[in-house]
């Protein structure tokens, strides 16, 4: 229970800190601006609605998987096959740098070890 409270406090503190995060970690800032509303700040998703991002094959596999997911959403190859009811929009309006930062954040957090992604990697998937 204490752990949860600490997490709660940390999340509140992070929320209060707000935009200052963007200077330090553009991937985290991008994730929180575009992804966390559905996948949650802790990457835990929402049961039956939006997938959790913990230890996902897509985030530990070839770089293109997460890039495609961000750019195409539920229209990405292999997406939308699970038990989750909501559709994910595509975020292709974000720049290559922004997508790379978010993809890197997801692939190196939430128990994922897929490694970083560059803007050139994103460009090659456009």
């Amino acid at each position, binding site marked *: 229970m204490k752990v949860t*409270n600490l997490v709660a406090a940390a999340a509140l503190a992070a929320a209060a800190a707000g935009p200052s995060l963007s200077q330090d970690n553009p991937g985290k800032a991008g994730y929180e601006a*575009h992804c966390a*509303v559905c996948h*949650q700040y802790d990457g835990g*998703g929402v049961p*039956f609605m939006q997938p959790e991002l913990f230890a996902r094959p897509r985030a530990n596999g070839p770089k293109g998987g997460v890039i495609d997911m961000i750019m195409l959403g539920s229209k990405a190859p292999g997406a939308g096959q699970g038990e989750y009811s909501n*559709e994910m929009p595509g975020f292709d309006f974000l720049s290559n740098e922004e997508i790379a930062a978010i993809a890197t954040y997801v692939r190196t957090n939430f128990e994922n070890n897929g490694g970083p992604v560059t803007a050139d990697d994103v460009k090659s998937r456009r």
Partner: protein
Amino acid sequence: MKANIFGAGLLIASIAGGANAASTIGLAEDAPVDPATGISLPAGFKATVFADEIGQARHIFAAENGWVYVALRRPVDGNGAVALNDSDGDGVADNREYFAAGMQGTGVAVHDGHLYYSTDVAVMRWPLPAAGAPEGDATIIAEGFVPETQHASKNIDFDESGNLYVNVGAPSNACMREMRKKGSPGMRPCPLLEKYAGIWRFDAAKPNQDQMADGHRYSTGIRNGLAMAWNPHADALYMAQHGRDQFASFFPEMFTNEQSAELPSEEFHRLSDGYDAGWPYSYYDHEQGKRMVMPEYGGDGKTESNEGETPLVGFPGHWAPNDMLFLNGDAMPEAYQKGAFIAFHGSWNRAPLPQQGYRVVYVPLDADGNVSGDWVTFANGFAGPDPVMSPRNAKHRPMGLAEGPDGAIYISSLMSGGRVWKVTYEGN
């Protein structure tokens, strides 16, 4: 947090009022949770865990034959529903019969001697068996609903004139041109209103009615009216709808995270033929007490809208009303006999603020169906003892509601393997 203030106020009033205490309703925010059941209830009420680990329970119905029927969101051993029975009267079901092979769904109800069940694309019925699961093939009553994943559940209820009502949710957030895409404008007219975002009425007994050819669009402008019930005291259909998501992520220049957590209201309406609840062109702001223009349609959080009816109550944002119950019997205290119980599934769209709403509330109504007091919490504690920062950490989330033939109230949850509670009034 208005609920806290109201709840506490009523309790204080009851203590100060002395002799009037019997008319006090609701549950204090810090009411202790019964460790045996994991939930808290007002004084005089008692719960049992009627059934545990039954599968992902959706709506429930407690039939006159003594069995409780539960629709399942995902099949258990290939079956999309389960019938439960407590043969020895100890408040715990000791018989389970799974049925609805090859299906999964949300709606379940008994009407005119038949057991009705709905998948996302059809409503069907069997003759209500004397006991247990129905046998044989069901007869399709309403069909032709477009297969969707978002807001696809087809919850049902009936009036007392032989009509079936089916909620057809919108596969959309705010009828944006591009689904949930920041900056994408709303479409006008919203093409989804033709086949979705409303309550359709059918003949409850006629087989194979098609939604568009045979159904009647009874009410519109309803994003997802998953909590819908016929009020037998006022002879009217009531509905609580899920408001849209993501004000702050789409319009950070108009809404702070705090405003986006509270808004838009979850709206509680009394419906009628031709009623328009306003989605997607407007939303309700319970803090201002006004309908506002949806930002995808030119709104800015400050501009009032003249589109859509004003709800009876606006609840805090994103609480997710998933079922509604009016009591027919008189086993519960008089103060609870004519109003609406609403099961709130709990939010996911209030982050980075804590998620809220995992509770059952009660809206007092008079015999004519008018709101006669502030809403109160009736059952709480479902999510667990800590603030819910991420919905996956909620242990239970209220889902379906039902009244048994003995007057008990049943509450379902689809989390943690699926559970049903039975709530009785024991008095002081």
